[in-house]
């Protein structure tokens, strides 16, 4: 069974050994049977059951049949298995008993004895029967007898040891049958023999292995023993098993080496520590490298020899097993571990020797694999071989460097000597490769022969390796080889070729953020760019390196110095600017404005502080640092008003720039997010949880190879903006680490300024930060001067000094000395001038700038406030006290005519329902120095008091009560309440009934004042009174100004009592009390108290013979339904106008309830004749039309009859034709004219006796 994978048979050497079977007896017979036998034996496989639980195998048996000789039998202690005869067969054709007895039996016995002597039990006796012979000798015994005899004689109890083969050379079914039986027997016997003998051998081998800790144990001896087993497996074509044997040996040896490294050295290992003298690589073209095997056998092999031999055997077996890629993989491991082991064992190796060995071995393995695979197979399995290519390249490179083949000058004599030594170690070329043109040996020799040859070979190898790496997608490995290649090119002084490789590698490292490789590659690239004269790129790389913390301080200084020296070289010439990105030079950490809200007025000074972290290792003097500013006028002007800006822009104003996102791979950040899902696996039987975990569902997306094509390090390409607005800072020395740089600018045009670029220039080298992000802006605004006047408290109170705050926002106007505010005074409002008025000047940022005395000059018309000098965009604040003169709205009395309003008052008093204070607006017109127009400011003062008055009567005595109600939140002190009549003088006297001392009036409380009205002569029909009371805030002690008293003017009319009405209820005669349901008599007596007065002169008055009378109507009304008036409840009487004239009326009333009942009301009206009654029927339209003048002032206040009458009189002429029915008209008498002396009296009514229900009304 040749290995089918080998298209080139001469290369694959099969094991030529076969298990040996000896043949004794009739040699001629055997010779005749042999062709058939050797052909038939391997035809059918047999199952081989193995010991130690190894899996049974189907096996095709072959044998090497040799003539039996006693020498073939192994002697005691001989471990050779290959030459071990596994089966002994005795052939006989004898069919004659005589012959048997005469010769065959003896021969057999002798044969058996020899076998027994060597304790060999694997034998077989074959009796061949031949029909032809039988025919010749018909008289012979039945054939069975010979077989039986033999069985009897030799095979006691093992009758199957004797096999009959009938007519082996014929072509009959019987022959076939017999052959099959024989072959089966033969195979079974062979396998039994294998099992037994190999088992025994393995046992022995294991025993030997267990002795490995004993001092005299030798690995080489053991190696030979186990290899014997491997040979047998190989012989049986059990390559897997054979490989296992070698792998075990391999592992054992490796373990020893590792143990040696750990200090546990075995004696026999010392031999492998001999210096290496030969490094001629692996030899894989022979199945067994007998040369090396003998070295091992003689215990003269070096480590490399042993490893080489071991690997060549493994390689052979792997190729038999059709696993060429495993060969490649194992080869790489072997080469690496050999190098390690040599180090571990401290074997002395001449420099370069190992490189030679590895190089040769790599190529040998590769060629060996190529030898047994076709091109397509190789191409599709590059992944397995590329490691070897890579390793070979690397080793060739190091050989080149070692031997001076990479330098420009070529190798010197020392290098040449070394080359010679290395070549000597290779020895002569092997005969099997001597004819191959491209043998590893020849390649190496040629490569070492000259600089040019080396270059050719190295480049070939490198390019092939890079190509292979790339083709299997190992870009990173390709980059690494490329980096070596670049180094090579640099040595060869062709930097232009090196650059592309370095750039490629750098791109890759940058994309994945591997800092150290980036640094290293940049270092190489810097050198390359320097040679190429790419100034800009070189400077950029240098700056990156100078800021690279992975480099040593010296290296960084060197690169920094490179930039500086370039800069200083170029200063004199007018060379081009070299623009480099700033981030490799310094990092802008933060920025902040002063003022911190980055809002400044026109002409104001703005400073910008930046913190620039210099990445350079040494201080660098920068000629200029500039910030380009883009100016724009904001369209939406509202958003840029000073108020908006100062309010809305953030306060602290520190803008922090994100640290440079150092080596995170930016290009790959757009990968999809992990999609993780929970996973539960339940057992199908009982649904219990078996496993749980997390699955990433988009692994295929995430683990996909990313080939970033975008270059991450574009050399500059930074555009310098040329803006008109630049913030500059010259001659700055940037120390390593953070530096604080301040720019100052004076704001010019209003608008928005955006900081765009940051440039730092060192000579012609410009480091530019192309975009400042986050966006940084500052705003410049212009503001008109403004004046604000506002009360300090919530509301201003009239009558007491109140503070008002004046705020002058200067805006763009500069207040000069002598500028003043001119307040045109409102008459009822005083501006109180104190000596110590102070104004505070604030800057725009509310910082107090100064505090100056304010001069206020007051004349009659104008108050002039001299403003202190203040620069533009400042605020002047001061407070002034103003006093609104207190006044109460003038209201008429209960029965009086409306008094005239004061026409000179400008203010408008408004009364609102409830307890709202009356307010007064004062308009102040202020002339500001910055404007030709006056500013009009309205100040609203609230009157703290509400005053009402009422007229009280007791018979003819009259009292006036004034109620002062405090509506404000303040407490006041009232003093000197006074009431004067300023209508008619002395005949009227007002007698105060009030306390003299000041009275406190608390918030929301009232104080009452009462005066009695006394008169000597006939009193006037109306009184004009003025109430005045001094007041001052209770909380404040001494007031700076004397306060005007609070005044209240009112009129009282018709206050003189004309009639006295007296009602009386008398119980029915004979009873003591009134009873419910029973009629009682009501006596009403109306008495005239005075003679004819002015007030009586109206239409109701009639005169007959100097005798005057007036018509009155009385009416008895009981609103509370206590009484039922029986009969007429009202009537008209003619009342004589004379003192003490009395009219009595008698009526019947019936109490409806029991208890003390108030008397029913008796009302008295004037009864006016019908001809004067038009006005009462005036329709509403003419009312409104004709009242336009007085409507707004008095309509709501005075809905009483007096105004009606006054209007009525106005319209009486014009409305003559408006006639209603000629009805008499009633007019209520004013309350002051009627005194009801029985008001408030009650009468006891007792319930009637027969009432079952007692109703008691208590009022």
């Amino acid at each position, binding site marked *: 069974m040749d290995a089918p994978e080998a298209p080139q048979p001469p290369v694959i050497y099969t094991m030529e050994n076969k298990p040996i079977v000896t043949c004794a007896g009739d040699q001629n017979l055997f010779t005749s049977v042999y062709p058939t036998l050797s052909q038939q034996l391997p035809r059918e496989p047999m199952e081989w059951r193995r010991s130690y639980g190894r899996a049974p195998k189907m096996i095709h048996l072959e044998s090497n049949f040799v003539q039996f000789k006693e020498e073939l039998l192994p002697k005691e202690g001989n471990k050779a298995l290959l030459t071990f005869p596994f089966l002994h067969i005795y052939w006989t054709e004898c069919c004659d008993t005589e012959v048997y007895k005469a010769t065959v039996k003896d021969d057999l016995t002798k044969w058996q004895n020899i076998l027994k002597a060597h304790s060999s039990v694997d034998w077989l006796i074959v009796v061949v029967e031949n029909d032809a012979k039988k025919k010749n000798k018909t008289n012979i015994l039945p054939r069975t007898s010979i077989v039986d005899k033999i069985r009897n004689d030799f095979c006691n109890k093992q009758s199957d040891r004797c096999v009959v083969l009938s007519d082996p050379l014929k072509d009959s079914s019987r022959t076939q049958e017999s052959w099959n039986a024989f072959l089966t027997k033969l195979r079974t016997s062979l396998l039994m023999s294998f099992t037994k003998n190999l088992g025994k051998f393995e046992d022995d081998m294991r025993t030997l292995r267990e002795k490995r800790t004993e001092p005299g144990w030798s690995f080489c001896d053991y190696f030979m023993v186990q290899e014997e087993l491997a040979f047998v497996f190989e012989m049986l074509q059990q390559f897997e098993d054979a490989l296992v044997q070698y792998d075990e040996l391999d592992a054992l040896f490796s373990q020893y080496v590792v143990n040696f490294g750990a200090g546990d050295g075995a004696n026999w290992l010392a031999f492998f520590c001999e210096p290496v003298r030969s490094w001629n690589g692996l030899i894989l073209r022979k199945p067994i490298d007998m040369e090396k095997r003998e070295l091992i056998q003689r215990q003269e092999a070096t480590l490399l020899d042993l490893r080489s031999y071991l690997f060549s055997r493994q390689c052979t077996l792997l190729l038999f097993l059709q696993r060429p890629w495993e060969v490649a993989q194992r080869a790489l491991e072997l080469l690496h571990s050999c190098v390690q082991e040599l180090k571990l064992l401290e074997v002395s190796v001449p420099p370069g020797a190992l490189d030679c060995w590895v190089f040769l071995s790599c190529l040998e393995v590769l060629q060996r694999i190529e030898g047994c695979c076709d091109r397509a197979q190789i191409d599709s399995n590059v992944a397995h071989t590329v490691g070897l290519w890579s390793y070979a390249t690397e080793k060739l490179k190091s050989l080149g460097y070692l031997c001076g083949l990479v330098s420009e000058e070529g190798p010197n004599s020392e290098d040449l000597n070394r080359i010679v030594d290395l070549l000597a170690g290779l020895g002569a070329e092997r005969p099997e490769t001597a004819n191959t043109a491209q043998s590893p040996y020849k390649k190496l020799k040629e490569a070492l022969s000259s600089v040019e040859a080396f270059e050719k070979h190295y480049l070939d190898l490198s390019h092939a390796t890079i190509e292979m790496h790339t083709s299997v997608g190992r870009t990173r490995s390709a980059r690494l080889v490329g980096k070596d290649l670049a180094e090579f090119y640099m040595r060869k002084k062709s930097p232009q070729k090196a650059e592309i490789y370095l750039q490629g590698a750098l791109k890759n490292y940058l994309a994945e953020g*591997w800092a150290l490789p980036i640094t290293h590659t940049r270092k190489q690239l810097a050198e390359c760019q320097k040679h190429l004269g790419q100034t800009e790129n070189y400077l950029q790389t240098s700056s990156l390196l100078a800021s690279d913390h992975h480099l040593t301080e010296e290296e960084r200084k060197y690169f920094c110095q490179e930039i500086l020296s370039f800069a200083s070289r170029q200063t004199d010439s007018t060379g081009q600017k070299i623009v480099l990105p700033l981030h490799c030079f310094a990092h802008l950490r933060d920025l902040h404005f002063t003022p911190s809200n980055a809002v400044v007025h026109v002409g104001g000074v703005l400073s910008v502080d930046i913190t620039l972290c210099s990445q350079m290792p040494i201080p660098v003097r920068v000629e200029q640092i500039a910030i380009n500013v883009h100016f724009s006028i904001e369209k939406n002007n509202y958003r840029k008003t000073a108020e908006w800006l100062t309010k809305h822009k953030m306060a602290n104003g520190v803008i922090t720039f994100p640290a440079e996102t150092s*080596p*995170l791979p930016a290009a790959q950040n757009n990968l999809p997010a992990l999609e993780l899902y929970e996973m539960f696996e339940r057992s199908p039987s009982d649904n219990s949880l078996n496993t749980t975990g997390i699955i990433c569902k988009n692994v295929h997306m995430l683990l996909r190879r990313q080939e970033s094509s975008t270059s991450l390090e574009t050399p500059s390409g930074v555009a310098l903006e040329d803006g008109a607005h630049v913030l500059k800072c010259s001659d700055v020395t940037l120390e390593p680490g953070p530096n604080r740089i301040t720019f100052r600018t004076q704001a010019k045009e209003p608008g928005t300024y955006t900081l765009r670029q940051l440039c730092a220039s060192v000579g012609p080298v410009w480091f530019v930060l192309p975009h400042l992000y986050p966006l940084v802006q500052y705003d410049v605004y212009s503001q008109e001067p403004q004046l604000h006047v506002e009360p300090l408290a919530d509301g201003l109170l009239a009558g007491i000094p109140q503070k008002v705050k004046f705020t002058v926002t200067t805006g763009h106007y500069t207040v000069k000395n002598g500028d003043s505010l001119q307040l045109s005074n409102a008459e009822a409002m005083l501006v109180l001038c104190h000596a110590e008025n102070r104004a505070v000047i604030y800057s725009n940022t509310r910082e107090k700038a100064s505090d100056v005395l304010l001069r206020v000059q007051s004349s009659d018309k104008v108050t002039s406030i001299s403003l202190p000098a203040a620069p533009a965009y400042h605020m002047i604040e001061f407070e002034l006290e103003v006093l609104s003169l207190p006044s109460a709205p003038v209201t008429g009395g209960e029965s009086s005519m409306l008094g005239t309003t004061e026409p000179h008052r400008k203010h408008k008093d408004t009364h609102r329902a409830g307890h709202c204070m009356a307010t007064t607006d004062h308009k102040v017109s202020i002339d500001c120095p910055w404007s030709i127009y006056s500013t009009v400011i309205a100040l609203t003062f609230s009157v703290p008091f509400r005053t009402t008055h009422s007229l009280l009567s007791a018979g003819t005595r009259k009292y006036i009560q004034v109620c002062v109600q405090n509506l404000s939140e303040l407490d006041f002190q009232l003093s000197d309440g006074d009431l004067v009549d300023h209508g008619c003088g002395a005949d009227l006297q007002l007698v105060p009934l009030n306390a003299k001392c000041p009275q406190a009036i608390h918030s929301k409380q009232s104080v009452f004042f009462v005066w009695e009205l006394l008169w000597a002569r006939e009193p006037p029909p109306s009184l004009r009174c003025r109430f005045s009371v001094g007041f001052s805030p209770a909380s404040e002690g001494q007031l700076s100004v004397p306060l005007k008293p609070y005044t209240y003017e009112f009129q009282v009319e018709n206050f003189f009592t004309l009639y006295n009405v007296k009602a009386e209820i008398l119980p029915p005669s004979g009873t003591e009390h009134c009873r419910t349901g029973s009629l009682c008599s009501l006596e009403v007596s109306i008495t005239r108290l005075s003679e004819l007065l002015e007030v009586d002169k109206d239409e109701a008055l009639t005169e007959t013979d100097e005798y005057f009378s007036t018509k009155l109507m009385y009416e008895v009304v009981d609103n509370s339904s206590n009484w039922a008036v029986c009969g007429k409840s009202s009537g008209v009487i003619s009342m004589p106008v004379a003192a003490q004239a009395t009219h009595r009326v008698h009526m019947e009333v019936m109490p409806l309830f029991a208890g003390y009942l108030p008397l029913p009301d008796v009302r008295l009206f004037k009864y006016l004749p019908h001809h004067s009654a038009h006005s009462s029927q005036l329709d509403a339209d003419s009312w409104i039309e004709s009242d336009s003048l007085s409507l707004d002032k008095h309509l709501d206040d005075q809905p009483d009859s007096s105004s009606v009458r006054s209007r009525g009189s106005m319209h009486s002429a014009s409305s003559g034709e408006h006639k209603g029915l000629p009805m008499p008209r009633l007019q209520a008498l004013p309350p002051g004219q009627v005194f009801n002396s029985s008001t408030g009296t009650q009468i006891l009514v007792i319930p009637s006796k027969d009432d079952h229900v007692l109703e008691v009304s208590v009022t």
Partner: protein
Amino acid sequence: MCESFCFIIAGHLDNPVFEMEFLPPGKAESNVDHHHLNWLITHTALSPIAENMRLPNHTDGYAVDQFKNWFVSAFVPAGHVLPDRRQEDGIKHFFIDDCDLYIKFAMNPHYEPNSPV
């Protein structure tokens, strides 16, 4: 023979997340050249690791790659890649411990995936 170890955790963007060098006692500082070489090798080893990961039966691959006499071992827990240099078998335990530690760390809500540890 100097036994120095370099341990690098790479994130799934192949970026280094954690880097640590274990030097043999007595050797105060590794030379810079050596250091960057470690990184280069580890970086290069990512490709074969990724290839191994794509194999159907990928396990915690030890001794993924050998390079310039350095052995690279890698441990690929679900989702993460932790390449490393190796000398010993104890590395498996080392890896498992590291993995535990890293997972604990990654559980921290303040930790942004792939950022350096």
